[in-house]
């Protein structure tokens, strides 16, 4: 499966289409930017509320200023590139798109072709 980088980002960014599922069977499609620096994935807070994703745990982190902080993670399934990831932890974020962290990406084989601006999810 191959997909062009999203040119709405500057510079263009690798994105995949994701379908997030709530506990009551509702689901929503959303574009998801790949974020290999993130330990967990992020989802717009409005979507977390809309799908009623239940909270799961708090995590300790450090802000970009180096200040200690805490965040609450929610849980919900997501389908990316035809693969279903069960009970992924989501941080509610103030963005209109999702961010896929290494908790999801480490289970995928992804080829980023920067010059061609394409993302390809390969079969294992």
């Amino acid at each position, binding site marked *: 499966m191959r997909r062009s980088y999203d040119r709405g980002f500057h510079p263009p960014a690798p994105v995949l289409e994701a379908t997030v599922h709530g506990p*009551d069977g509702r689901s929503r499609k959303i574009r998801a930017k790949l974020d290999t620096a993130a330990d967990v994935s*992020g989802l717009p807070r409005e979507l977390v509320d809309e799908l009623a994703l239940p*909270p*799961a745990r708090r*995590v*300790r*982190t450090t802000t970009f200023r180096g200040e200690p902080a805490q965040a609450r993670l929610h849980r919900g399934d997501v389908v990316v590139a035809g693969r279903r990831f069960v*009970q992924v932890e989501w*941080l509610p974020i103030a963005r209109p798109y999702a*961010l896929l962290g290494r908790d999801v990406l480490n289970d995928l084989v992804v080829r980023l072709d920067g010059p061609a601006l394409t993302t390809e999810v390969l079969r294992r």
Partner: protein
Amino acid sequence: MLVTGDGAWSGWPHGRAHSSPSTRHCRMMSNMVARIVTIRDLKARVGNLVARAAAGERIIVTRYGTPRALLTSCEAGQPVSSSVRAKPVRGARDFDREERAFERLLRQGWLDTHRGRYVAVHRGAVVDVDADAPALVRRVGQKLGRRVFFVGFVGLEEPQVDLPGQEMR
């Protein structure tokens, strides 16, 4: 570490609210991730709570069910960001209750055998344990579906996580 408070906030958590800056600040903090304790809890566990606040946790102290003060680190004692939630999270109350149960079990020493690992608490009891938090959430989440549980770390040095997009500003 910093303690702030004005005791002037009625309507916890959904009722009328005064509009003083400190009140708005306190309400916004309550919608962020924050631990809520009573004055009695504060007296009984002041050392533990101060250590948590100094480590970055925000603790709201209530009296007769009304938030009266905010206990937080000196570094965090500044205006909250625009990324604060505007409305309560569904399941948050159950989540907070399970978290309090986790704290109680921790305090009473029931979790000592799980040091260095994560435990999942549901209906006030430990339902599963794992060294890998996402794996534990996945397993218990599959089992419990939409029912709320809390996953907490047993030990002093909980691993930190890098969040997507550095949203916690």
